């Protein structure tokens, strides 16, 4: 099962960005500080991704060899304890 898990890692750069940029807890109000124009920032990331996707279609998928972009490669709890 561990081996199989390790092979299910067809995540693309877009999969990672979608989670990091679009998901997760949003803090509203004055507790967090808006020192960065995040919306502008993520817009720029999206533009980059759009060009990166184009690059992928052209066969320049330069990030696929990057272990970072294979979340499934993580060896989390390879031996799960038997359920009681």
């Amino acid at each position, binding site marked *: 099962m561990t081996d*199989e898990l390790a092979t299910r890692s067809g995540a693309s750069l877009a999969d990672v960005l979608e989670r990091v940029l679009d998901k*997760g807890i949003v*803090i509203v109000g004055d507790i967090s500080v808006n020192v*960065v124009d995040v919306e502008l920032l993520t817009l720029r990331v999206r533009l980059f991704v759009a060009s990166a996707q184009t690059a992928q279609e052209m066969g320049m998928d330069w990030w696929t060899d990057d272990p*970072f972009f294979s*979340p499934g490669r993580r060896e989390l709890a390879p031996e799960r304890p038997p359920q009681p």
Partner: protein
Amino acid sequence: MIPSSPPAGASSPPNDRPSPDTAVYAYTITRWSPPDPAAPVRVVTHRDIAMLVADVDPAEFTEPAMIGLVRRHHTVVREAFEHGTVLPLRFATMFADDDAVRRLLRECHDEVVATLAAIAGHREWGVRIPRPQTAPAAGISGTDYLALRRRERDGDQLHRRLARHTSRSTVRQPGPGFRLDAVYLVPDQDEDEFLAEVDSIGGEVETTGPWPPYSFSELRTAAR
């Protein structure tokens, strides 16, 4: 006579240059049990919960650095997820200082504890099933057309099959290219059954994971 300038190596940076603006970048909420993270990531705790943070210079959030910053965010969250349950924050969430982080943890404490308990022992999986290549409308028989339409509709049915093995799920509005585009929060003990169900679909299925529960991390008390 007062010396006109302090000797080199004096304690604090001399006079009028403002210290660079720094902010406390927050990666993820977790239980207060992480092993010491690798610098520069550090832990701010409140009671039994904690935030993984790092001091950053907001000026570094520039376009050329973006992918590296996203990568760093994901790496920190993923490593924390290897040690326990995480509630990741949206990219580029920053606080003025540690006190502000602690204030958030204090105000959201009860919901954080309940949410951490609810998603403990789960991992997130993404499943996408591409739509079959559509044949040109001309030259397709009535039977083939009906079969095509049926395959397009069965995304709902496939979702119900998969969702039986999960605690929560989110179906995205399928784009033009997909019969099903969904994210599942799968209990560890049901993961084998879930993945077997995915395999039983047959055909072309894109599975990604396991992910930290990015798609299921929400805090109502932080959003008001």
